[in-house]
């Protein structure tokens, strides 16, 4: 497969997934576009490393995560909670509370819950033990629960 076709294939297969993850974590559209392009550049540059991963998707997650982490470690602002009266009203602003989580937690919840990627695959992509990821997942859910219902 030529490089041109390979990029076309990645764009078709993972384009939406990568862009949605970028949009979820980076709210600024200009930066989202920029990070998206950097991710694709890295996918093309590091294509030889696919062999080190069990699935192509875990390799994509690894690159996606590395680039998002690089960007967010410099740009993430942990804002304060919106003072709302009751849990139902807070649930209306779920997106806001979700953004208050750390980038790692947001990414993990998205991958696991929205995209249904199993823990072992995420663990392999991020070079982390599965048990640590499960613990992190639980902590993230508990944090959200506390913010909304406490």
């Amino acid at each position, binding site marked *: 497969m*030529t*490089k*041109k076709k390979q*990029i*076309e294939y990645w*764009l078709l297969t993972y*384009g*939406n997934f990568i*862009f*949605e993850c970028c*949009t*979820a974590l980076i709210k600024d559209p200009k930066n989202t*576009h920029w990070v*998206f*392009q950097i991710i*694709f*550049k890295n996918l*093309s540059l590091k294509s030889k490393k696919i062999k080190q991963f069990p699935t192509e998707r875990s390799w994509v997650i690894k690159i996606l995560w590395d680039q998002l982490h690089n960007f967010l470690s410099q740009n993430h602002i942990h804002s304060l909670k919106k003072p709302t009266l009751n849990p139902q009203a807070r*649930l209306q602003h*779920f*997106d806001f509370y*979700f953004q208050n989580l750390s980038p790692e937690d947001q990414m993990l*919840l*998205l991958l696991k*819950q*929205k995209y249904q990627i199993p*823990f072992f695959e995420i663990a392999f992509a991020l070079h982390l033990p599965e048990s640590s990821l*499960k613990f992190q*997942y*639980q902590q993230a*859910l*508990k944090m*959200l*629960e506390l913010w*909304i*219902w406490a």
Partner: protein
Amino acid sequence: MGINCFKWQNQLSDYLDHSLPQALEKEINDHFNQCKKCHALFKHYQILMTQITELSFSPLPSELKKKSFSHFSGLFHFFTFSSRWKLPWYLQTFFKLTFFLGGIFFILSIAPNIHEWLKKFFTLFNSKKFPYFF
């Protein structure tokens, strides 16, 4: 071994995934029937999971798709031999090595003249003294 509030929360992710052994899952369900607090907590987690699943984001704009594609394909067509010429690996290596060594030879060959060029450059701008900074 009975399940308490602390134990089931430790296995929360597996429970939500339905990856626990059936007996343990049944024990946790029994615990929910007894402990209203844990049951409420579980309901909250379910709501949270639904909320995460329902998070919606804007789809990939077609402009960006075209932009990324044209940008990177162009870049790699320029840098990779294989995509353009389909040369065998030994010829690719030969050309790359020749290009690399040629570059080094070129730099080495112009190095002695750099001093002279700088001198000419400064005289062009009528500087009184040539700055001997190296």
